[in-house]
């Protein structure tokens, strides 16, 4: 049951390969696959909330030796959000991706990507996590460079090299961790560490893992690949990347570091705190300097990942809960902003703010959709972003981290400025854009994900107390008993 999302994605990917000349078959299959993944994810969340963490062991071996899948509340919530994003991404791809790429196996790659993401969220074994990372990276390399323009190939190459270096780091860390503890099953590892303490070799291993995951999460000083590659991808796929790929890195950091708080590896958290602060500031400054909407939004990812890491680098239950809430808010809002860009790209014919304008008169719908997500990202009540920032500030205040509080507020202000830049130029400035040449009626389907994701932002904002309760439950599961 809990591995169903992975198998459904695999099956969908293979079936789309089988009969790829028939676009209708491929598209409907893709949609059916995504919908059933979402359905299963809802079911998994319900099961985990009612009956506690679920697990499954492959290969008939007893627990520490078998390949285990383990889903607790954190994994279940992330599976839910990522399958929602996968569904919205599928609809958006059907609506916007040009026929050329659809015939060339776009959906196959897309579902392999999803398989990697679902796998990374549901595995309970470190080496298995490495394998899922590779699965999702392989498909994302091809998805970035799919269009074979100069920028997408070069962006794809940079993206590939830096991420492979991070994977090598990951593997090196695995070797050290295994040498120190003798197991790679995450829960077994945590139990052994609690009993035996953390040796020097183990700390080296964990540090290497932290470096690897920080590269994948796009933290300072490892974020340069991100704004170079995301804008080069097709907008529909950039939306899925922006929502999920860096967040897989953040999830891995949470998963590895937080259960070990209290031990010697606790000393890594202050470094992460520093890295998070710098990426918050540099990300938003980079966004201010961009003229390409996708570039601006890509830099925002760096800044927002900074917020998420900042929360859990505090190491407290409140901080971890805040970062989980932030994840649930951020994944959805970021994807929605990129999907708005996909819409703008079709209506206005460009993604450069200098060549866009007066969209407010032309298409009020997209203006409203964009404004809701943008305000949520900045942090305006009653949207989810406001509560995410409130909880962040609360957890920072609780430990009297004044610098963090000040920077959070200043960065929010700069985020507002860069969003204003998009708003004034794209929607407000009088400008004669060329008449849109829609070739396909399928384009109108893009409205569906935009509306769904905005409803999510609004409802998470309105039900913030209940969602935060869930996030606290996650935090209590993760933070070891002695540290609460």
């Amino acid at each position: 049951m809990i591995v169903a999302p992975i198998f459904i994605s695999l099956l969908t990917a293979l079936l789309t390969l089988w009969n790829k000349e028939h676009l209708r078959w491929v598209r409907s299959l893709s949609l059916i696959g995504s919908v059933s993944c979402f359905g299963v994810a809802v079911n998994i969340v319900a099961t985990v909330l009612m009956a506690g963490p679920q697990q499954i062991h492959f290969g008939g071996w007893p627990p520490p030796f078998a390949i285990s899948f383990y889903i607790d509340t954190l994994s279940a919530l992330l599976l839910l959000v990522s399958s929602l994003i996968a569904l919205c991404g599928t609809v958006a791809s059907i609506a916007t991706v040009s026929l050329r790429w659809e015939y060339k196996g776009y959906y196959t790659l897309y579902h392999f990507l999803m398989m990697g993401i679902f796998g990374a969220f549901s595995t309970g074994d470190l080496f298995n996590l490495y394998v899922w990372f590779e699965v999702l990276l392989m498909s994302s390399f091809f998805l970035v460079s799919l269009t074979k323009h100069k920028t997408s190939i070069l962006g794809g190459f940079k993206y590939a090299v830096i991420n492979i270096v991070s994977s090598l780091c990951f593997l090196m860390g695995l070797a050290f961790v295994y040498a120190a503890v003798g197991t790679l099953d995450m829960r077994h590892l945590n139990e052994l560490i609690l009993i035996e303490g953390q040796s020097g070799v183990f700390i080296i291993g964990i540090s290497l893992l932290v470096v690897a995951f920080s590269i994948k999460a796009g933290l300072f000083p490892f974020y340069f690949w991100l704004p170079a590659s995301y804008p080069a991808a097709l907008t529909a796929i950039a939306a899925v990347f922006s929502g999920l790929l860096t967040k897989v890195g953040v999830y891995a950091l949470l998963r590895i570091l937080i259960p070990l708080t209290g031990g010697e590896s606790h000393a890594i958290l202050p470094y992460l705190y520093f890295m998070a602060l710098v990426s918050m500031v540099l990300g938003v400054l980079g966004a201010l300097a961009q003229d390409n909407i996708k570039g601006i939004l890509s830099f925002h990812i760096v800044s927002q990942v900074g917020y998420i890491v900042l929360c859990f680098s505090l190491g407290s239950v409140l901080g971890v809960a805040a970062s989980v809430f932030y994840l649930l808010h951020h994944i959805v809002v970021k994807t929605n902003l990129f999907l708005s860009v996909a819409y703008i790209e079709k209506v206005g014919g460009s993604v450069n703010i200098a060549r866009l304008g007066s969209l407010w008169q032309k298409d009020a719908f997209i203006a409203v959709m964009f404004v809701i997500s943008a305000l949520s990202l900045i942090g305006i009540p009653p949207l989810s972003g406001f509560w995410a920032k409130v909880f962040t500030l609360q957890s920072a205040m609780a430990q009297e981290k004044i610098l963090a509080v000040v920077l959070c507020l200043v960065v929010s202000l700069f985020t507002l400025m860069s969003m204003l830049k998009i708003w004034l130029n794209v929607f407000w400035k009088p400008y004669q854009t060329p008449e849109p040449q829609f070739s396909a009626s399928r384009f109108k389907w893009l409205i569906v994900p935009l509306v769904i994701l905005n409803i999510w932002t609004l409802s998470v904002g309105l039900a913030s107390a209940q969602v935060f309760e869930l996030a606290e439950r996650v935090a209590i599961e993760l933070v070891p008993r002695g540290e609460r």
Partner: protein
Amino acid sequence: MMSLCVAALFAVGVWLLLSRDWLGLVIGIGVLGHGINLLLLLSGEGETREALPQALILTAIVIGVGIQAVLLVLATLGYEFSRQRDTDDLTEDME
């Protein structure tokens, strides 16, 4: 002896990785990958934990070959576009 092998592979791998040539970079990643596979083998020494690293290395080798292929494809395409072997001269012209 094994440790020396790992060290040598790491040195060569990192040196190639830092070279400015596309091909050097790709080969460097390959060599580094082999170094890390040996490191994994070393991590399982002693007691009864030798079996798992061998299984892990087998998987890692397969993944490594796949990655090499992907990188070579990207590098070839990139070379065709830019006519530039030197990674330092890649410009970032957005739009």
